[in-house]
């Protein structure tokens, strides 16, 4: 089942097209990696998917998923690094979209947050302050928050930037597990081509336009991929 289809999506700032006529489909259970160099429009496309910017042309169709059911793991902001908030407070804030205008969290949301913290084994640190955690733990907390918001689709924007190799491997493992065992669709924006090829079943290579979209196996055969890998090696 196609969860999201993008057709000829064009998004621009100040008359410049950051994303030009990009089309792709995201099927349920996919692990799609969006790769490309800096300035290739990855982040802009993400903003378009999240509804933070309106596309100028083309359409983004959601199927069996509401636009607000995307579990978004944003890039960390400066504000968050020294934010006084406990792990529990951050995680439960993912339940906000279930409350509508109702002011306080109910038992159901508290249980849900507790459940997600258990799933990501951060229950022990729930009283700790977010700013005292390691980068890897912080990502786990944000992942738990995203799962509170939805169990259909996770959208991760450069999730491993700033993490050391051990934490990076750990996070990839965790996301792969969520994808395989719980059937959560994953959309990951990444700089890390090797891991994208290792974990993703589909690749969208962006160069403002779609340079490649298809299965990882097909991508490996392209010259584009070999050039990228060559540049890495």
């Amino acid at each position: 089942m196609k969860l999201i289809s993008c057709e000829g999506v064009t998004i621009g700032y100040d008359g410049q097209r950051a994303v030009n006529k990009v089309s792709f489909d995201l099927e349920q259970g996919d692990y799609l990696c969006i790769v490309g160099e800096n300035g290739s429009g990855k982040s802009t496309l993400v903003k378009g998917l999240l509804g933070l910017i309106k596309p100028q042309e083309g359409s983004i169709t959601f199927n069996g998923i509401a636009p607000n059911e995307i579990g978004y793991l944003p890039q960390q902001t400066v504000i968050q690094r020294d934010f006084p908030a406990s792990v529990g407070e951050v995680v439960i804030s993912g339940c906000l979209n279930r409350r509508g205008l109702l002011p306080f969290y109910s038992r159901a949301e508290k249980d849900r947050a507790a459940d997600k913290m258990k799933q990501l084994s951060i229950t022990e640190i729930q009283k700790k302050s977010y700013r005292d955690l390691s980068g890897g733990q912080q990502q786990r907390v944000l992942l738990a928050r995203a799962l509170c918001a939805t169990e259909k689709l996770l959208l991760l924007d450069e999730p491993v930037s700033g993490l050391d190799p051990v934490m990076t491997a750990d996070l990839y493992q965790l996301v792969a597990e969520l994808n395989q065992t719980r059937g959560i669709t994953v959309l990951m924006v990444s700089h890390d081509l090797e891991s994208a090829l290792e974990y993703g079943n589909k690749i969208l290579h962006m160069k403002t336009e779609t340079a490649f979209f298809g299965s990882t196996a097909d991508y490996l055969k392209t010259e584009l991929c070999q050039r990228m890998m060559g540049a890495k090696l």
Partner: protein
Amino acid sequence: MIELLTGLLSYTFVVRALIVGVLVSLCAALLGVSLVLKRYSMIGDGLSHVGFGALALAMALNLSPLEVAIPVVAVAAFVLLRISENSRIKGDAAIALISSSSLAIGVMIISYTSGMNADTSNYMFGSILAMSKSDVILSVAVSIVVIVLYVLFYNKIFAVTFDESFTRATGTNASRYNTLIALLTAMTIVVGMRMMGALLISSLIIFPALTSMRLFKTFKQVVISSAILSVICFVVGIVLSFIFSFPTGASVVVINLLMFSVFSAIGLFKKKR
């Protein structure tokens, strides 16, 4: 000590100042946590200067000061927020521009109508005598609105403060809550401005939050500690102001500064151990 306090409370103007001051300190502290964390501290400063201009205008036109200042500052809050959200214009420069312009216009209006006198100084640095009975009623009403809205929207304010993009992406209208925070700030500033002074009111917003963050590590703790600290500092400040006839605003700020130093020292000490 008790004699002093009963003596203090026998003056109506002190009781008025206490009622309004405690409520305003509470509101300012609550909002301050979000404003400081969102890097919007300067908005408070900008708004108070706009408030000064509005008060001067209201005086010149012989209108009730609060009724003119609240809508004017609310509009300014809205504009400043839009400017900060728009990354193409540098927010801090725009705020500085608006705040110094309003101050200049306010001073011009005052010197044209009544001339620079003790009133002007009171506006700038605060006076314990500022509140009339109707002001008190309006201030209490505004403060209660601010506190009730803050409590009702506490979880949303937390989410918007911590991570606006996530909150937006999961379908909460973040702009609405940003606007709410700005409007509540505007109301708080106008109400507290005449007692604290236009130049000093923003400290009421910034200090308690910053002080609490030296020691406390969760959002709820920081909010509660800020509220308590803010009220304590205000009460101590106003007593000082009464005893030594210091300007109220300045006394409250100095007490806040003292608390900030104490909390910072304890924070450093705790870290070292």
